[in-house]
């Protein structure tokens, strides 16, 4: 599971120069990185790009704990090894591109609190999407809570044991259903309270 709360903590409490940079600049930088990824065709250029991102990572003294996060998309990139027929150069290119992309995003994420990222996106995307993004983010936390508590309940009441795989599967699928129902009920309550707080048909998050 992504350690969202830890990322948020880093984004809010961090003090590096990247934290101080305005989110607009950082997103512009991210776009630059992206165009580099798209346009560069030779390993040396990509190595340079990746090297720059890595050094930024260490210059900002980001904890090593989150470094594995930048490796995560490699899971998907591995499939492209099969496309290439195990050719080193191709694999190197693909991996560098993937790594540069994910390192850039992680840098952005851990140095910018998410409300600021979304708010900057608000200038580009239709506001309804951004509202939905905010609601999604909030919902993730509500669901994580439910998920955690449900997991604890399964654990405390011995709902999951390798010795009884079938019972465990039934218990787990019930828990999943429970999760979805809880989520839906929470979303209904959210809607109610939005209406109670003056929501009609358009959300105004920050004054527009």
């Amino acid at each position, binding site marked *: 599971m992504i350690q969202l709360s830890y990322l948020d903590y880093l984004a809010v409490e961090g003090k590096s120069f990247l934290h101080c940079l305005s989110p607009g600049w950082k997103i512009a930088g991210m776009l630059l990185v992206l165009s580099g990824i798209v346009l560069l065709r030779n390993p040396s250029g990509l190595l340079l790009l990746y090297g720059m991102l890595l050094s930024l990572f260490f210059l900002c003294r980001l904890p090593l704990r989150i470094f594995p996060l930048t490796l995560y998309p490699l899971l998907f990139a591995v499939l492209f090894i099969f496309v290439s027929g195990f050719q080193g150069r191709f694999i190197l290119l693909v991996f560098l591109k993937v790594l540069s992309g994910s390192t850039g995003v992680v840098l952005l994420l851990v140095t910018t609190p998410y*409300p600021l990222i979304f708010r900057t996106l608000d200038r580009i995307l239709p506001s309804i999407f951004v509202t939905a993004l905010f609601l999604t*983010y909030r919902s993730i936390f509500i669901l994580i809570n439910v998920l955690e508590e449900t997991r604890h309940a399964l654990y405390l009441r011995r709902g999951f044991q390798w010795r009884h795989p079938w019972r465990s599967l039934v218990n787990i699928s019930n828990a999943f259903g429970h999760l979805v129902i809880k989520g839906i009920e929470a979303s209904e309550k959210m809607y*109610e*309270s939005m209406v*109670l*707080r*003056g929501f009609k048909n358009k959300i105004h998050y920050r*004054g527009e």
Partner: protein
Amino acid sequence: MKNGERIVEVDCITHVYPDQTKVQICGLDFVVNRGERVSILGSNGCGKTTLLKHLLGILVPRDGSVRVFGLDPGKEYSKISRKIGVVMQDVDEQILGPTVFDDILFAPLNYGVGKKEAVRLAQHVIERLGLEPIQKKIVNYLSGGEKKKVALAGALVMEPDLLVLDEPFTGLDPLSRRDFIQVLNELNREKGITSIMTLHEVDLAPEVADVLYLMHGHGDLSERGTPGEIFGKFKDLGSFNLEEPTLTRLFKGLKEEGLDFGDPLGIDEAIGLIKKHWNDTQK
């Protein structure tokens, strides 16, 4: 209290939940006048939350009528919503974030208050509730008590005429509870805010309510009175799954033992009564 204008009137409503659970809020009419602090007491699952949801237009009754500020909230809630602040039983879903400050801004912005004025309103309520230390925090990381306060701030920010609170004190520690009560009572005194709340803490009822309603199983509203009236004279509170406040129980017990000090509702009053009695007999 102030001028006796009727703000809320509920006349024998019936609600049937999708699973056919029927809640019939009947018996006495549920009436709230401007400036009154009204509390509803009753057992678990008797229909308190159901009643409040009807006032807010979240549920629509099958039979019976609901009037809030003279309108039917089921149909025209948007016309009156600005005058009503709400804190529901489950505050988690009520807080939309992303940060505390944004959340408090939600209502003003959605009511089309200008940006500047909205910020002013939000700052005002933040100051009043002492939320400055957490105003920049992301809402996902607040503790239960803090969430309750943020929800209250969100309800108060539009300076409503009517506050609807569903079990506002559950899960709060005793001092936070006391702060909460103090804010509510100040608002009532200064601005004449009307409030309707449900609660289970009978000991707090005399402090937060001018009028109490008692609700029987499945919605039967069968008693109305001041805390003194409800707790003072003997009533079969057990049938409401209630008990008297500690002080009432103590003084009733004393009365049964032949020591009649009166029926105090607050501690200071109780001390005063005992002392007076004591001095009288000493003389």
